[in-house]
């Protein structure tokens, strides 16, 4: 069955409009990634509404293109002006700017591109190989197992996020509370509407996502006007192109970082930043000349870039098989699926397995386009670094507002957008991660619905039913504290590596 779905997906993915929109997504992602202070998440949040009006097989690969392009794009300002375009590119600043000072910026940008494409492509292949067996297991689980998997994932997201655990858990509860405003998912009875008509249908997902992920970045970027302009001319032609020998010299490092990034991508909530630092630290400790790291070593750039891009594919595994987003990027992708009338998870795989495979194959093809677009447009994206943000920031605001408005044509959504934008900004300033909030908001109604179904199935004896009839649910429940403890310990260790690396 999986092979059939894969072959059908292969046929479905071979569409010119899918290719064109993936290419558009890559260009937009690289453009935004190349702008210091503009993040990939922000670009995805702002461009998310565009995907609603495209077919799923065009709109979702478009967003995946933005994601892939954005992560690579972040390395361009990191290499050229020592300002990481995205958090994932911070580790690239250790060697990238030093290479620019040595007049080897073109080599640095090319090794960053090739490492990114290699890491991304390899991890996507692993994702496709892994997703089938995982989906087969996921298709056998019922509402009780789904409910406990939701509980486990919510706790994992809160545990593996940055900062204090209690803050992550509080944000998750806040997301659950917000998801309860409107109607309950079982009987459609009104909850916490305070007789406000606009609240009867609940808080819309789109303004919440754009508000929490895009507006705070804009507000942070504008705190100091002086920081909005990069002066001077950037020469990317100096030093010549990367040679095959130089690439071969970095190949072992690229492979190592790809394995690290792929492994980290499978752990929800850890992400590209930690992967890049771990990849860099591993390359440095494996090197015969570790003292050269930080002074302009091509291997340093390759290690960080292969690791951060290798995270991209595996993060989709829990989303597509169980419907659980592992980080803020996959939460945005979940929003895109939901708006298209698709609910990622076991059912989607069961009913539209070919569509899921088509999206994954489009993701593979995106890497080929990524290589060509990146290679030929490097000089163009290098110029993007110097574009004045005084113009781009207001344009981004207009995109965010238009995107929030078009879905329901309700002006109330604009106020919700601003409210969550300000909330997200304050949360950032007070060291709260909003990702658990978004996860709680998205997964809350699904958890409640699955739990309601479980209660119905149990016919009044919930405890006995779970204990004697649903061994997998019991196993997951028992394993939850241990898994959370192990992940917490691992993410703590990863953060220590992150701090030790600089």
């Amino acid at each position, binding site marked *: 069955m999986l092979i059939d779905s894969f072959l059908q997906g292969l046929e479905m993915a071979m569409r010119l409009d899918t290719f064109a929109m993936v290419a558009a997504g890559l260009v937009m992602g690289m453009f935004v990634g190349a702008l210091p202070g503009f993040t990939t998440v922000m670009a995805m949040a702002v461009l998310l509404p*565009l995907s609603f*009006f495209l077919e799923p097989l065009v709109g979702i690969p478009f967003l995946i293109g933005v994601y892939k392009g954005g992560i690579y794009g972040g390395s361009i300002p990191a290499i050229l002006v020592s300002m990481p375009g995205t958090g994932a590119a911070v580790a690239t600043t250790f060697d990238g700017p030093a290479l620019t000072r040595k007049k080897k910026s073109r080599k640095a940008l090319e090794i960053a591109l090739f490492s990114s494409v290699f890491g991304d492509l390899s991890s996507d292949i692993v994702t496709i190989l892994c997703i089938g067996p995982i989906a087969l297991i996921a298709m056998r689980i019922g509402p009780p197992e789904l409910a406990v998997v939701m509980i486990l994932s919510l706790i994992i997201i809160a545990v593996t996020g940055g*900062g*204090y*655990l*209690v*803050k992550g*858990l*509080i944000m998750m*509860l806040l997301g*659950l*509370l917000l998801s*309860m405003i409107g109607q*309950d998912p*079982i*009987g459609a*009875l*009104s*909850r*916490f509407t*305070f007789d406000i008509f606009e609240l009867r249908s609940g808080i819309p997902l789109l303004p919440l996502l754009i508000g929490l992920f895009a507006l705070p970045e804009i*507000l942070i970027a*504008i*705190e*100091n*006007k002086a920081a909005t*302009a990069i002066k001077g001319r950037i020469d990317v032609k100096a030093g010549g192109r990367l040679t095959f020998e130089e690439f071969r010299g970095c190949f072992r490092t690229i492979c190592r970082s790809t394995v690290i990034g792929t492994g980290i991508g499978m752990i929800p909530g850890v992400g590209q930043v930690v992967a890049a630092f771990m990849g860099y630290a591993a390359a440095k400790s494996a090197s015969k000349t570790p003292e050269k790291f930080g002074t302009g070593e091509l291997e340093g750039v390759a290690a960080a870039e292969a690791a951060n891009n290798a995270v991209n594919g595996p993060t989709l595994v829990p989303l597509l098989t169980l419907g659980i987003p592992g980080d803020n990027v996959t939460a945005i992708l979940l929003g895109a699926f939901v708006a298209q009338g698709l609910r990622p998870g076991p059912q989607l795989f069961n009913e539209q397995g070919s569509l899921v495979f088509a999206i994954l194959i489009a993701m593979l093809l995106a890497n080929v386009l990524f290589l060509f677009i990146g290679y030929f447009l490097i000089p163009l994206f290098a110029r993007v670094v110097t574009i*004045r*943000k*005084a*113009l781009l*920031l*207001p*344009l981004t*605001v*207009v995109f965010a*507002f*238009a995107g929030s*408005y*078009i879905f329901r*044509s309700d*002006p109330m959504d*604009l*106020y919700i957008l*601003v409210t969550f934008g*300000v909330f997200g900004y304050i949360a950032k*300033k*007070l*060291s709260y991660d909003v990702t658990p909030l978004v996860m709680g908001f998205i997964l*809350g109604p699904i958890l409640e619905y699955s*739990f*309601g*179904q479980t*209660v*119905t199935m149990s016919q009044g004896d919930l405890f006995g039913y779970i204990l004697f009839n649903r061994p997998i649910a019991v196993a997951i429940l028992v394993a939850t504290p241990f898994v959370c*403890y192990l992940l*917490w310990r691992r*993410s*703590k260790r990863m*953060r220590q590596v992150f701090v030790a690396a600089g």
Partner: protein
Amino acid sequence: MESGPRDPGRAAAGVKRFNFNTAIAIGFVVLAVLLFLAIPTQIETPLVIFGQSLNALDPKLFPSIVAVGFLILGGVYVFISLSMTDENGLAKLDREAVVNVSVSVAAFVAYAWLMEPIGFIPSSALLIGGLSVFYGLRNIALMLAISLGVPTLMYFVFTRGLKVFLPEIPEL
């Protein structure tokens, strides 16, 4: 099982004091109490026929769990917050940042308020023009071209290309 950033000096000294985290933690405890008060009046009761509820799950159950969660976590947070050492980023903002952020938020609210009454293109042109000048753009010709051109292009792409609605300029 806490893993937040710590100031080694203070942590080593074991200093405990009231800080912004404590205030927020108390706020969450208050929120829990307010939730307990709101649940009986703000959640509809399911119909009961022949002594049997029509809802498999009481709609008050999950909100009650969340309220209990806020109460417990809020209490733990109050206790832990006394030794927390993460920085209050809002208190560290300089005057320029406060002015820039406040003006930007005010502009966002005004934009939300104006979009329907005056239409997407004029309200967007005002926002782009106003904010870009405020953010430091001094090339007026470029500002005018972008603030009028981009919203007009967006309007036609969204309404004609994607077939979605954006507020029109009202007829006088």
